[in-house]
């Protein structure tokens, strides 16, 4: 089990990335993520969330990725919860310090 804690503790200011064994497939409603290791499937129900997740590796922090994807401030909490869910299922993981 990953070391991530409850959603409120998801670290928006850390650097994240998609796990190596995860494949992403964009869909009209957002995207499908499939983890070849855990056999878990995640439905991302927003194209904006897809943009956030896709850009994690290129951004300094998850917060920066949300900003780059134009996530409105009022919705950040929803996105944080979504990212926490993805971290808990190992779809995304923290980047090692460069």
């Amino acid at each position, binding site marked *: 089990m990953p070391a991530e804690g409850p959603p409120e503790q998801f670290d928006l200011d850390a650097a994240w990335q998609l796990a190596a064994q995860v494949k992403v497939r964009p869909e009209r409603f957002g995207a499908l993520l499939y983890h070849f290791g855990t056999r878990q499937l995640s439905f991302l129900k927003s*194209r904006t969330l897809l943009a956030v997740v896709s850009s994690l590796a290129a951004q300094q922090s998850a917060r920066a990725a949300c900003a780059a994807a134009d996530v409105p401030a009022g919705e950040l909490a929803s996105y944080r919860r979504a990212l926490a869910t993805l971290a808990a299922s190992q779809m995304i993981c923290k980047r090692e310090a460069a």
Partner: protein
Amino acid sequence: MTTTTALPLVEQFQYGLAAPICLTWELTYACNLSCVHCLSSSGRRDPGELSTAECKAVIDELERMQVFYVNIGGGEPTVRPDFWELLDYAAEHGVGVKFSTNGVKITADVARRLAGSDYVDVQISLDGATAAVNDAVRGAGSYAMALRAMQNLADAGFAGFKISVVITRHNVGQLDAFQAIADRFGTQLRITRLRPSGRGAGVWDELHPTAAQQRQLYDWLVSHGGNVLTGDSFFHLSGYGGSLPGLNLCGAGRVVCLIDPVGDVYACPFAIHPSFLAGNVRDSGGFTRVWQHSGLFTELRRPQAGGACESCSAFDGCRGGCMAAKFFTGLPLDGPDPECVKGHGERALATAGASSAPRPSPDHSHRSAGRRPVPITLARRPPVSACNADPLAGFTAPGR
């Protein structure tokens, strides 16, 4: 600008997915066994089956469509001489494979080869925790063959394989025993629902669990089901209480579909019938065109009216049950599932005639296997009188 409201998945699917998620691909109708309930009526190879090159073309399409995973079965897929070549081809092209087998070709050597691959999952079919129960459905020696395959996989260090069971009246009492077998090999148990599909249509009446057994099954899943897979088979049981894990909906033509050995694309592997045929991978545009644009799938993706079931308190969970189960028992698709937990299906079946059930087609059963004998009791009655020529004299129709 707010992001669009995240619709429930059921509503998302009406717009169609770019590719199926749970795609079933039956590679051949040939099989070394003749299981009485075979959903694809398998046994004999079809002369029109896809060639190796055509199969690779399908895999290329699946790669382009970014299909994550294909579930390969049949018949018995490993009896195709090119099976291992196709397995390697799929892995090389980024398409994960889970194949279902009765174990006939899973030798120790084969098991070792499989253990080395990240892209392959294996599922061994077993329908009884004892040879007596299993072989009655799958044929003499099939239990031993399955267990030998499991032992070979376990010995080769392939711990992640699954044991897949079709639940029947005769094995529902063996759930704990099945779990024990899975535990013995350090693997995962998967149980699925018997559908009246293929040869299953002919044995459904006698093999499907009774209402009491369904309840027993549901309770067992709720209390033991944490590690048991179900392939979303039992969403029709959610009328008993809470939903079981899974999407809990019929994904035919929306999330799942079947590619059959001759390239026909059906909405669902349990619905191999012209009514659910969407197209063929040999048609121009291939599988991609069928998935994205076939008339049948477009129709299935429209929000489905629950019909007679909508007003039932259980509808939110059971969604009217399994389309294939309704179709092959002759029930209307906008009505209750034949195994509706409220009994609505049973009542509907009683009023519908048995003759309204469509014949499964096509049928690739072994000719020699034939049908199981239908028990007929010859009644011997003394004649009413030596002078009465009426064959029905004195006859009273038996009550049900």
